[in-house]
């Protein structure tokens, strides 16, 4: 196997999109670099392999920044839902008995928190030229089902009137969202699996739209 063939094989560590755009140029630059080599073969290949591995990892991470925006949006939404519940429980007074937060405005507010925090995260993580409505929609859509799972206890209490003592039966649909107490590994694994599944599904949908 020639050095160029070996380098071409290493280029498969990059995404297909990147390889199609820059693969030929990288191969040409590698060819020139090898001809002008000032290192021993071993040091040259160590340099090349570490360059490919680190830059390919960075390139893949750059492509996943939308996932980081989803995680930040998720943390902000879950923090808000549980924060509201904790505050209400702290200041709870029997006078508030039976006062429940209406589901629709509460859900809409949490939705706004999610959308706004994903937008802020995108503003923090992407340079202006890379901010896209599509990335915002993707990150929000991925974070939403997981936010519902992680917020379920807080949402339940809010709909029950936030009374920490009261036990009210919930609609079956709501019960389905309450997987189990946090700290239960299977529940956490289920929640992360839900996130991964929704992420993959939405990404696949967006990819199929792009190729149509």
């Amino acid at each position, binding site marked *: 196997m020639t050095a160029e063939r070996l380098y071409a094989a290493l280029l498969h560590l990059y995404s297909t999109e990147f390889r199609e755009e820059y693969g030929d*140029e990288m191969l040409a*630059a590698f060819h*020139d670099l090898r001809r002008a080599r000032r290192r021993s073969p071993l040091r040259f290949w160590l340099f090349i392999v570490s360059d490919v591995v680190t830059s390919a990892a960075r390139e893949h991470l750059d492509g996943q920044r939308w996932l980081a925006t989803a995680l930040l949006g998720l943390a902000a939404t879950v923090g808000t839902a549980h924060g509201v519940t904790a505050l209400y429980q702290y200041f709870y007074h029997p006078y508030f008995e039976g006062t429940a937060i209406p589901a629709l405005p509460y859900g809409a507010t949490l939705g706004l928190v999610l959308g706004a925090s994903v937008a802020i995260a995108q503003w923090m993580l992407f340079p202006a030229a*890379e901010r896209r409505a599509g990335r915002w929609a993707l990150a929000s859509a991925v974070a939403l089902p997981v936010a519902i799972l992680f917020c379920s206890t807080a949402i339940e209490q809010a709909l029950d009137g936030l009374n920490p003592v009261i036990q009210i039966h919930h609609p079956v649909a709501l019960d389905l969202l309450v997987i189990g107490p946090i700290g239960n590994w299977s529940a956490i694994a289920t929640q992360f699996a839900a996130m991964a599944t929704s992420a993959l599904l939405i990404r696949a949908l967006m990819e199929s739209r792009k190729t149509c």
Partner: protein
Amino acid sequence: MAPTRAEFHVLLALLDGPRHGYGLMQDVDELSSGEFQLGPGTLYTAIKRLRTSKLISETGADADRRRCYRLTKKGRAVVEEEARRLNELVRAARKRGALPSAS
């Protein structure tokens, strides 16, 4: 966002005019007196980010049919701003004795 070390070196090399990939690698090597060497992977991932941020653009191919890149107005502004920032840092380092005095 401030450019990374590789991005800054590429921008700095392009101040002298358009370059193709290997030309940029040679320039960076020379500018840093051999202390910082860019591999093709680091170079082209930096080029991709700089193009996306519109700090550099493609000028077309040279005689050897290689794609060349040039600095945009925005890229020039960024490299000047970063150079000013680094200059301030060097000045602060001198003041604290981390570097010998310039005089």
